[in-house]
């Protein structure tokens, strides 16, 4: 971050930083188009595209008909013609109708065409729970995207990353599924627009010596809070924010785990078949003899996302993270 940027820092929410990322990208590059349901006049149901239609016109920021496969499918065509579409799926579960387009075309087009036709598309997905949404409004669907070669999968956890990673994603020549943690939309920080570490790099958000918490997106603040609370128990926890699930930063993660010898993966997505399995498995493959205990996972339960009044029981919170840390065989 430059000194100038720091000086100009002002309080901003993650939603505002995301808006600003699209705004700046659209201003710099006429090929960037935003499309989706209610992204124009309304500015999106979370107001993340607020003002874009007004500033750039409805041809650049377009309210589409209500059809997610159609939105992503037409975005593919736009990208084939050289545009750089940024697509909004209104909520995680409403990206499912676009699944075939995503898996069979978006993820594969570059490969199918021997690199001749890359698709620089960003699929923005407001994702995850914790906002009291009724069913189908709180899914954590990253496991589906992770399991699909050809997609990059990114999830910011901070205001600065929201801006920086979205700029990176829009600049990226590969398709990016950009997971925006809904419950962090209104999280705030003093911030001014500035570049960040590239997609594919994890960042150590907090250094520590006792164990590593490996996490991303909405669970990063939870882990940081847990790390603070852990001090009382005498644990000095390191927190690694993955930032992108694909590409995965084995280097940063494994370096941390080799240092600490213990690790817990924390995410909100269901445990079984969720990202944590992959992460735990690859860390174990790479750091086996450094591990004092198996890599544990703290995740959402293996259930459909609960109704609003019960979601707090499902979401991995500080206590559950600390319980897992306690099970890391300290006596051994």
């Amino acid at each position, binding site marked *: 971050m430059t000194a100038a940027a720091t000086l100009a820092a002002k309080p901003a929410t993650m939603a505002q930083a995301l808006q600003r990322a699209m705004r700046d990208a659209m201003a710099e590059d006429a090929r960037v188009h935003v499309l989706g*349901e*209610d992204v*124009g*006049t*309304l*500015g999106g*149901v979370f107001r993340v595209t607020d003002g874009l239609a007004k500033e750039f016109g409805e041809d650049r920021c377009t*309210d*589409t*008909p*209500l*059809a997610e*496969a*159609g939105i992503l499918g037409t975005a593919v065509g736009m990208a084939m013609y050289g545009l750089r579409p940024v697509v909004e799926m209104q909520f995680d*579960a*409403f990206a*499912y*109708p676009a699944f075939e387009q995503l898996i069979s075309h978006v993820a594969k087009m570059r490969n199918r065409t021997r690199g001749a036709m890359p698709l620089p598309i960003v699929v923005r997905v407001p994702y995850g729970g914790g906002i*009291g*949404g*009724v*069913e*189908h*409004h709180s899914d954590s669907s990253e496991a589906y995207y992770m399991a699909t070669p050809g997609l990059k999968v990114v999830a910011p956890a901070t205001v600065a990353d929201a801006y920086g990673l979205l700029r990176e994603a829009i600049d990226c020549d590969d398709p990016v599924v950009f997971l925006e943690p809904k419950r962090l939309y209104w999280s705030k920080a003093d911030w001014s627009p500035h570049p960040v570490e590239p997609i594919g790099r994890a960042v150590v958000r907090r250094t520590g010596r006792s164990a590593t918490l490996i996490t991303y997106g909405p669970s990063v603040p939870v882990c940081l809070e847990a790390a603070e609370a852990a001090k009382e128990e005498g644990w000095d926890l390191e927190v690694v924010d993955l930032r992108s699930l694909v590409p995965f930063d084995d280097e940063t993660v494994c370096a941390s785990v080799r240092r600490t010898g213990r690790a817990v993966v924390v995410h909100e997505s269901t*445990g*079984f078949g969720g990202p944590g399995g992959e992460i735990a498995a690859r860390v174990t493959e790479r750091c086996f003899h450094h591990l004092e205990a198996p890599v544990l996972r703290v995740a959402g*339960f*293996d*259930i*459909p996302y*609960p*109704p*609003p*009044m*019960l979601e707090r*029981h*499902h979401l991995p919170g500080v*206590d*559950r993270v600390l319980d897992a840390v306690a099970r890391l065989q300290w006596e051994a």
Partner: protein
Amino acid sequence: MTVQELPGAAAAYPAFTLRTDPAPLLPDTEPYRVLGLGTDSPLDPALMRRLYEGLVRGRRYNAQATALTKQGRLAVYPSSTGQEACEIAAALVLQEQDWLFPSYRDTLAAVARGLDPVEALTLLRGDWHTGYDPREHRIAPLCTPLATQLPHAVGLAHAARLAGDDVVALAMVGDGGTSEGDFHEALNFAAVWQAPVVFLVQNNGFAISVPLAKQTAAPSLAHKAVGYGMPGRLVDGNDAAAVHEVLGEAMRLARSGGGPTLVEAVTYRMEAHTNADDATRYRGDAEVEAWRAHDPVDLLERELTGRGLLDEETIRTVREGAETMAADLRARMNADPVLDPMELFAHVYAEQTSQLREQAAMLRDELEAGAGR
């Protein structure tokens, strides 16, 4: 031979005949109307009275539910204020054994069909996803993913027809929902299978902020019927008598083996998309006010009063009944629902997997530890 008939011996090219005559499938150019025309074609007094009562109570129900969001008793409420004629007619047109497939906006139709309003609001209160047994009431779960309930209605109607049962399914969807692939696939399956199903599109002018002009270029949504080979009907969605008549006709057609119908009811969403929405961002007061002049409750009340089918006394009784219903709803919704977090693991599978048993045990321990503190 299917569409393409065999070439006749003499003809140099294959004879071709349209599979069905499109003319009778095409909707009229004007929505069908009954009320406010100044004519006096007969109306069924008992039915009108039931519709009227339904509309008045429905309006009150919408107001009460919206109020409950302000009091934090509902997580969210997508109001059908202004659309009560559709909601009530849809409910009243059904026979006991028929099925209703509501969208997330149609709690009122479910309530008018006889569902307990608290059970109907469970989803929106947030204590569970569906508050009732769909089979007991023959009301499918209120459906949030748009248009996805339409193929369900087709499959159910098809299954009933195969069983020889006298069951018709009525499926509700919004104007926005017609753009989804599931709308297309459902209507096509229904027509090919001649399933006893009626599709009611409430065209309320908007899909959240998106006006119909950005949703479709079709002459009307009812015109979509032609492409499936089913009749399309256009009806004034604020005219309860007209909606009931058009739906009734479609139900009779379906019941008699005549297959599906697509009904477009032209109406207007008087309030914001939900309490969380700010409608001033995308539409002006003038439009809303203009529609207020065509209010479904007023329209019916005026007509029935004019015809002498409704008197002050009845109006008062009906309104009082609505107030009682609202008070009762308010009171019951003010009580905190009793929730058991352990239920999270109860219905994922018929039998709990060992993984879920482990997780349930963990949560139970946490809850007990928490209670102990």
